[in-house]
Structure formats: structure tokens, C-alpha cells
């Protein structure tokens, strides 16, 4: 291989340099604005090279391919729309302790209000993952308080 003579950027396609952190991202993709934001943020994070989005439904049914992807990952990131934490619960039932859990409604974004997603809201969720905001959560903080805050959208 030729010697590298110019700086190389690690951007793009979830690619990490050799030895870099390989992250897998599970979004709840729930039937609310917050749920759909979780998915859109996971897509954006994948495009920005933060990690790779993976199928949360596959995780729920424990497909062999998803098990391999999880085993190959250094970190598991979960993005949930609301404090019910469906994606986190699916991960935990699969025996996975997420390294970071982002809850969209914890970022000041309302759960309901239609399914139109704003770029600003997507950016808020994406930034939170890059900043590592979901790492500081304690186990207690992650637990639902008893209500999902559903505003009648029928998400859960």
C-alpha cells in the first residue's frame, strides 16, 4: 500500500478507522413524533459516521444476523422516543446493556403533535448522541415513571 501523504478524514458511512469504536444504534421508531425522530436521528448518525443503524424489530425476535452485529459492536446505542423505553427494554431482554440511551422527550421535545419532523429536532437528538448525553443516565433515571406521556396517539 502506498504511504499516506495527506490527512484522511474518518467521515462517512459509519466507517471507523482501524481500532475505532464500532457502534450499533437501535431506535424505537415508535408511532409518534418522538418515536419517528428516534429513527430519523439514527439514520442521520449513521450518515455522519457515528455508528450503524440496526433493526430493533430483528433484535426483538433475536435473528442470527442481529446477534452477530451486536457481538461485533463495541458500543450499543439506544434511542427511545419516550420514557417507556421500548428499544431499551428490547435490548435488555436480548441480554444487552446499552452503553448510551437517548430519550427524545428528555431533550425537551414533545412526544406528540403530528408526524412532521423538524430539522432542528433531529439535530437536537443527533447532537445528544455525539455529546454522550445518554451515558450519564442512571438505571433509576431510565425507568418509566408510570406513564408514557402518550397524548392519545396510540403509540403503546
Amino acid at each position, binding site marked *: 500500500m502506498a504511504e499516506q*501523504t495527506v*490527512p484522511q478524514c*474518518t467521515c462517512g458511512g459509519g466507517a471507523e478507522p482501524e481500532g475505532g469504536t464500532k457502534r450499533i444504534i437501535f431506535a424505537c421508531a415508535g408511532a409518534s413524533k418522538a418515536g419517528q425522530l428516534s429513527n430519523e436521528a439514527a439514520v442521520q448518525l449513521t450518515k455522519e459516521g457515528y455508528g450503524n443503524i440496526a433493526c430493533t424489530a430483528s433484535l426483538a425476535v433475536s435473528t442470527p444476523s442481529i446477534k452477530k452485529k451486536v457481538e461485533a459492536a463495541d458500543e450499543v446505542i439506544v434511542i427511545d422516543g419516550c420514557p417507556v423505553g421500548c428499544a431499551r427494554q428490547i435490548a435488555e431482554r436480548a441480554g444487552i446493556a446499552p452503553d448510551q440511551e437517548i430519550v427524545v422527550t428528555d431533550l425537551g421535545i414533545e412526544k406528540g403533535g403530528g408526524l412532521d419532523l423538524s430539522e432542528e429536532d433531529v439535530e437536537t437528538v443527533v447532537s445528544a448522541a455525539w455529546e454522550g448525553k445518554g451515558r450519564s443516565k442512571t438505571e433509576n433515571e431510565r425507568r418509566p415513571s408510570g406513564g408514557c406521556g402518550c397524548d392519545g396517539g396510540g403509540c403503546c
Partner: protein
Amino acid sequence: MVLVEVFGTGCAKCGRMIKNVEIAVRELKIDAEIRKIESLDAMIERGVMLTPALYVDGEAKVVGHVPCVEDIKQILLGEK
């Protein structure tokens, strides 16, 4: 004053690095100068071959990935 240099070509990851550094400096309330360096010549001169890269007081601390805010805080506090 701490000199914090972020080397990057202006891509999404480099932008995230700058943003996280700014948050870390603001939350720590430390006296720091943040320099964003996009010149390839400057990177080659400093030996930066993988971006984004974070240098603190001239020393390479992170190369090729974006650390989270807490990690940057630890680096700035000399704990990493």
C-alpha cells in the same frame, strides 16, 4: 490558558468535535483558546494524518474519532 486545537476538513465529524469541545470548555468554565484548523498544509506540518483530531497544548489527545463531552472534559482536566 489552555490551547485546544481541532484539526478537521469541515466535515460532519469535525463539526461535532468543535461543538463538543465548546460545550466542554463552557461547562468547565476554564480559560481556553479553541482553534479550528482546516488547512491540509497545517495538518501535514503538525503530523496530523487522520481527522478529526484534538490537540491540547500541542499534544495529540484524540485522533480519528469524536470524543463525547465528558471525555473531552477529562482530557482538559488532565485526567486522560
